[in-house]
């Protein structure tokens, strides 16, 4: 009976620990708001061409066994 809380605690450490370390690492990265001129360019958005990305994803969804990753890869099509 006592192992369950311990396991929960351990799993929290295992899951949250690396995440916090990663976030700690991330906190040393970054720039000030006034240094974001280049990053604010529309073509620097992670998905800068959403229509093109959706059209391409639909092709690959119907020709390959993989989908998603960048965003949801769910249903919506009888093509696969």
């Amino acid at each position: 009976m006592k192992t369950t809380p311990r396991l929960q605690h351990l799993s929290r450490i295992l899951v949250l620990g690396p995440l916090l370390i990663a976030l700690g690492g991330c906190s040393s990265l970054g720039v000030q708001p006034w240094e974001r001129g280049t990053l604010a360019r529309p073509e620097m958005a992670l998905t800068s061409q959403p229509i093109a990305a959706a059209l391409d994803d639909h092709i690959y969804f119907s020709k390959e066994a993989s989908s998603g990753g960048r965003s949801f890869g769910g249903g919506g099509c009888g093509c696969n």
Partner: protein
Amino acid sequence: MVVAVLEAVAVAVTDSSQTNKSRHPSIRATLGIATGALLASGGVSADWLPDLQDWETSAGLMYYSESGRVSAIEPVISAKKNLDTDEYLTLKLTLDTLTGASATGAVSSELPQTFTRPSGNGSYTIASGQTPLDDTFKDTRLTFNANWERPVAEELTLNLGTALSKEYDYLSLGISGGLAKDINAGNTTLSGGLSLSADSGSPVGGEPIPFAAMQPEDTDPLRQGSGSDKQVIDAVFGLTQIINKRSLFQINYSLSSSDGYLNDPYKFISVVDPITGNPVFENSVQPDLPTVAYENRPDSRTKHSLYAQYKIALGDNILDSSYRFLTDDWGINSHTLDFRYRIASNNGSYWQPHIRLYQQSAADFYTPFFVGSERPVSGDSHSFASADYRLGEFTATTLGLEYGRRSGTRGWSVAAEYYLQSGKEPDKKFGALADQTLFPDVDAFFVRFIRDF
């Protein structure tokens, strides 16, 4: 209703090709009206739409053509409205028209083979040495997406979406929701989202009985039902990080779980003679009908994927690279690498070469053919097999080039891409099969035109 909306869109797009910049507001207004009409059709009053002039619209058109197989035309119209500070509504309508021939899963043979069409009415004959393709593949799909994004607390953004997709034999309804939290003075964004979709199919001719043999035309096709449902739950957790003034990256973990009818009702598997390697012909009513059995896949599938994207500005040029690893409980592992390099010109135009490399392993139950008695008995829903080449082992390469012009948030682009899929031939080819190509290359060419208004 939908026709009226598409007509409005078509008129607007046609107008735009004959006009100059001064007429753009009227085009946007037309598209806005079309979008408003769409909302009204869903039972939502369009009265609240504030100012139709403010919709940011984009239209796209793609033409896709496989050598000797499917071709598709896909127009898209998307409209985005800034409702309030950082609050946006995005609506998108996609029409997808497919025609052509689709691989059935049956093996090619030195003997001609005649197959029954999915409806049970009519048949088609495949010549010797040709990959069996059903040439009646035809479908039209209409998809509507709506997405609403708004800040709900300090540095916290809520995203809600809905999707509706309708094909002749398929209907999908989906909802999604997500939260994004900015931390580290906006340098880091943590996001999480959930998407649910309920799909229902009504295959032509009904849902085949697993491993039942194809029947001659105009004969009872041995079906077990007329409808088939599936549910898909997707969860995505992501981290986006600004590295420095000119680069950023994103890492996503996605979980996708599908339950229900995951078979392709139009795919089947050849039964070949264990000695000759030729398809078995044992139907006394129709001697040129080979014995082929309808496929059966597990009724659940869980996929995990890790996606990483890195984007860096190198002067005025931009390198966009991404990698995705996907693994699922069907035994499929895949790797996808994607690179785009945007080369800017002085006059606001750009060239963007693109390369995509994809590789996947086969599903555990991928079965290119059954040898004699390997075929499970008809109705055995606990055995799994599919000869769908998309579940086989293959690599795929895409090479593309895009040219575009951009001015602020507006612009246009045209892209041409070539896609080549090369599969691994089955190891166990024997007899007459050894002379056949069972996994022929599939290549496709597609062009895409997109314009922002």
